[in-house]
C-alpha cells in the first residue's frame, strides 16, 4: 500500500476552499456600501449628519429584525412572505390590547408576541404536516392578517396610551434608537444559533439535502415549525416597536416590508434554493438596502421613481452575486 493517498482532485478540493465566492460577496457588499457612503456623503445634503445616521439605524431595524429569521427560513429552502401584514397586525394588536381591552402595556406586548409565534407555528405546521408550500401558507397569513388588521381598526390608527415602556421602545437609550439596539442583540443571537446550535446546523442540512437530513435522524417537522414560529415572533417584535415609534397601531403600516426583507436576505448571498447563506451577509444586505432607500429620499428622487431605481439595484446586486457564485463553483470543479 502506498504511504499517501492524496489524489490531485483532493488537493484541488483543498485549494478551492471555503466558498471563495461567498466571502467575495460579503467583501463586495462592504465595498458597495462604502461607495454609497462616499457618493451620498458628497451629493446628498445631510446624509452624514448624526440625525440621519441614527434615523437609518432605526429604519434598518424595521427590516433587519425580521430578516434574521427569514434568513434561516430561506436557508432551509422555504420562504415567508407574511412579514408586512404580520407587522401591521401586531402593531394593531398591541395598541388594541393596551388601549381598548385594558390589558396594560406589558401583557399586551406579551399577548402580541405569543400570537406572532402562534400564527408562525401554524404556517410551519401546514408546511410540515400537510406539505402546503410555504409560499402559500404564508400568503394565507399575509392576506388574513392584512385583512384582520384593517377590519379591527376600520383602517384607522389606534392610539397607544402613554407609557414609559413604550416611550423607551420607540425612543433611544443613550442616544441610540432602541429598535437598533434590539436588532443588534438579536443579530448576535441568530448568528450564534445559525452557527453553534444543533438546530441551526439542522436548518442548513435540511435546506442543503432534505433526504440526507431525514436519514441522519433530523426531525424535519420540528425544524420547519420552529422556523416559521420564529419569523412570526420577530414580526410581532417589529410590530410592537413600530407601534411604539408611531404612538399607534396601524393596520395599513409596513406595506411591502416583506419584499425589502427578502431582498436584503438574497442580496446578502443567501440562496433561494436553500442550503447556503450567512447572517453577516444578511446584515450587509440590510445595510445596503437601508442606505439606498435613505439616499434616494435625500436626493429628492420622485417617490414613484424611487421604486424603479430600487428594483433595478436589487436585481443587479443579486445578479452580481449569482455570477460570482457560479464562477467560484466553476473554478472549483475544473
Amino acid at each position, binding site marked *: *500500500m*502506498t*504511504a*499517501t*493517498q*492524496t*489524489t490531485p*482532485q*483532493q*488537493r*484541488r*478540493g*483543498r485549494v*478551492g*476552499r*471555503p*466558498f471563495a465566492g461567498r466571502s467575495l460577496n460579503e467583501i463586495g457588499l462592504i465595498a458597495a456600501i462604502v461607495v454609497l457612503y462616499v457618493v451620498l456623503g458628497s451629493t446628498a445634503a445631510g446624509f452624514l449628519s448624526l440625525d440621519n445616521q441614527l434615523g437609518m439605524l432605526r429604519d434598518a431595524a424595521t427590516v433587519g429584525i425580521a430578516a434574521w429569521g427569514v434568513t434561516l427560513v430561506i436557508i432551509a429552502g422555504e420562504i415567508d412572505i407574511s412579514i408586512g401584514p404580520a407587522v401591521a397586525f401586531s402593531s394593531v394588536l398591541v395598541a388594541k390590547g393596551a388601549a381598548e381591552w385594558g390589558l396594560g402595556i406589558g401583557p399586551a406586548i406579551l399577548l402580541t408576541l405569543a400570537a406572532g409565534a402562534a400564527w408562525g407555528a401554524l404556517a410551519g405546521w401546514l408546511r410540515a404536516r400537510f406539505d402546503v408550500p410555504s409560499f402559500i401558507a404564508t400568503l394565507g397569513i399575509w392576506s388574513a392578517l392584512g385583512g384582520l388588521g384593517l377590519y379591527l381598526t376600520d383602517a384607522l390608527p389606534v392610539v397607544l396610551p402613554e407609557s414609559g415602556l413604550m416611550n423607551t421602545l420607540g425612543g433611544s437609550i443613550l442616544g441610540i434608537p432602541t429598535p437598533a439596539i434590539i436588532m443588534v442583540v438579536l443579530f448576535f443571537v441568530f448568528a*450564534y444559533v445559525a*452557527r*453553534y*446550535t*444543533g438546530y*441551526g*446546523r*439542522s436548518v*442548513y*442540512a435540511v*435546506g*442543503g*439535502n432534505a*433526504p*440526507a*437530513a431525514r*436519514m*441522519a*435522524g*433530523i426531525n424535519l417537522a420540528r425544524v420547519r415549525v420552529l422556523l416559521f414560529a420564529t419569523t412570526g415572533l420577530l414580526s410581532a417584535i417589529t410590530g410592537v416597536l413600530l407601534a411604539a415609534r408611531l404612538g399607534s397601531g396601524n393596520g395599513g403600516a409596513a406595506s411591502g416590508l416583506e419584499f425589502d426583507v427578502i431582498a436584503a436576505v438574497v442580496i446578502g448571498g443567501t440562496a433561494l434554493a436553500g*442550503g*447556503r447563506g450567512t447572517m453577516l451577509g444578511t446584515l450587509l444586505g440590510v445595510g445596503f438596502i437601508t442606505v439606498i432607500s435613505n439616499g434616494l429620499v435625500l436626493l429628492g428622487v420622485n417617490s414613484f421613481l424611487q421604486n424603479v431605481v430600487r428594483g433595478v439595484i436589487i436585481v443587479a446586486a443579486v445578479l452580481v452575486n449569482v455570477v460570482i457564485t457560479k464562477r467560484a*463553483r466553476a473554478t*472549483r470543479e475544473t
Partner: protein
Amino acid sequence: MAADVASGSTVIVVDGVTKHYPGVRALTDAHLSIRAGEIRALLGRNGAGKSTLIRVLSGVERPDAGTVTVAGEAFGDGGVRRAAELGINTVHQELSLVAELSVAENLYLGRWPRRGGAVDYATMRAGAADVFGRLGLDIDPDAPVGSLSLASRQLVEICRAVREQPRLLILDEPTSALAAAEVDVVLETVTRIASAGVAVLYVSHRLEEIRRISHSATVMRDGRIVDTVDVGDADTGTIVSLMLGDTARAAERPPERNVDRDGTPLLSVRGLAVPPKVLDVSFDLHAGEVLGIGGLMGSGRTEVLRALAGFDPAAHGTISVEGREIAHPSAAVMKRLGIGMTPEDRKDEGVVPLLGVDENLVLSKFSTVSSGPTVRPGRVRKAAERLIERLSIATASARTPIVNLSGGNQQKAVIGRWLHAGSRILLLDEPTRGVDVQAKAEIYRLVRELADGGAAIVFVSGELEELPLVCDRVLTLREGRVAAELTGADLTTDSVLSAAMAA
C-alpha cells in the same frame, strides 16, 4: 491483495433468508457468512437480488423467513435501529451528504457533538482528523463537501460509516460514479478498513476491482445465491456464466440484418472526449444500422450521447454528419441535422406528464402542425394519430395525459417525438429501463423497424444482455474508451458482458 483472513471470527451469518414481494421472488433461501477483516464481493445482474439482500441486512426490510446473526447476537425483527446497534453500516449508492456543510459536520450529520449547548466544532474536527488519519486520507475537515471531488465525497461517505465503528460495512457500488484514477484511493481505503478487523460486503460490477481487494465473490442470480467463488481462480467467463445462468444466455438473437456499410456513414465520431467520463470514443454509424453501446454504470455511455446531441461540449474529437464535420455542435444545430436523443430518465427528462400524448409527440417541432404562429389542434391530432398508429402506442385517445400510459408506451411516444421532427439519427439512452418484458420486446421490434426504414440508431443500455437482441453491432465502453467491438457471430450475451467487466 487482502490480508489473510482465515483467522478472523465470523461477523455475520445469513441463514435461509427469504423475502418475497407480491409477484416477485426477490430473495430466496440466502446463506452467507463473512469473517472479520474479510472483503466479500457481491456480484449479480440488475434484479438478481443484491439490493434486497442489502436492504434486509441494513434493517430496511424484514425477511419473510430465515435469520441473520451478527457476532453471535440474533438480528431479530430489529429494523434500522437494531442494525445500527449491532454495528451494520451501509453506504448506499446515492450520496447522502449536504454539500454546503463542512466535511466534519457531514461526518456527524444530525449527531453533532455539543459542549455547553453549543455545537463543538473542535471535537468534530478532531474526530474527523482521527478517522482520516487512521485511513491515511488527506481531506480537510473544514472544507465544504461541495468543494470536494466526487471521489473525496465518496470517501467522506465511507468515513461517516467508519466513524460509527461498524462490524460490517456494506458498500453498494462505491466506485460506479468515479473515473478510473479516483478508484484507487477508494479501494485502498476499503482495504485499510478491512485490515482493522471490519467485515466488508462490497457490491461492484468491476471484476478488476474485485480481484484487487478481495479473495472471494458471492454471485447472485434470480434472487438466489448461486455460488461463492475464489476470484483468483475463477476466470471472467466462469463468473459471467454464473451471473447469467442458462436462460439468459439462451435468449434468441434475431436474424442478421443486412446493413450497407460502404457509403458515407450518416454519423461519424472520431476521438470524442468529454472528461472525466469519456476519454476516447470513435465509431461510424450507417443508415439502417442499430449500434449498441454498452458498459457498466459510469463507463461514459450517457455522456457520449449527450455530446452527440449537442447538450455537452466535447473537449476533443470531431463529429461528422453525412461526411460533413460539425464545427460547433449545439443542441439546436444537432436537432436541425436530424439527431434526436431520448433520455434515460423518462419521467424527469422525457415526458411532460400532464400534457396529452398528442402534445408530447409534437413538442419537437411545431412548424408542421401550425399555420403561421398558430398551432392547429386538428393538425396536431392528425400528426399524433399517425404516430400512435405507426408505433402502436396503446392509449385511450390522442389527448390522454401521457402520465396515464404504461412506461413502455411512454417510451414509444418519446421516440415518436423525434420521428415527428423528422430525425434520421436516433440516440436512445436506456430505452427499456423500467418497462416490462413484453414492452421491451415491442421496443426492440420498433427499433429494428425504424432501422429497416433507413434510420440510424444508437441503442445505449446498461442491461448488457439485451444488446445482442436488438443491435447489429455493439461497442462496449470501459472507463471512457471503446473496449471491444462485437458483431456477427461474436456478438453474444457472454461476450458483451465479459468485455464490459474484464480487467
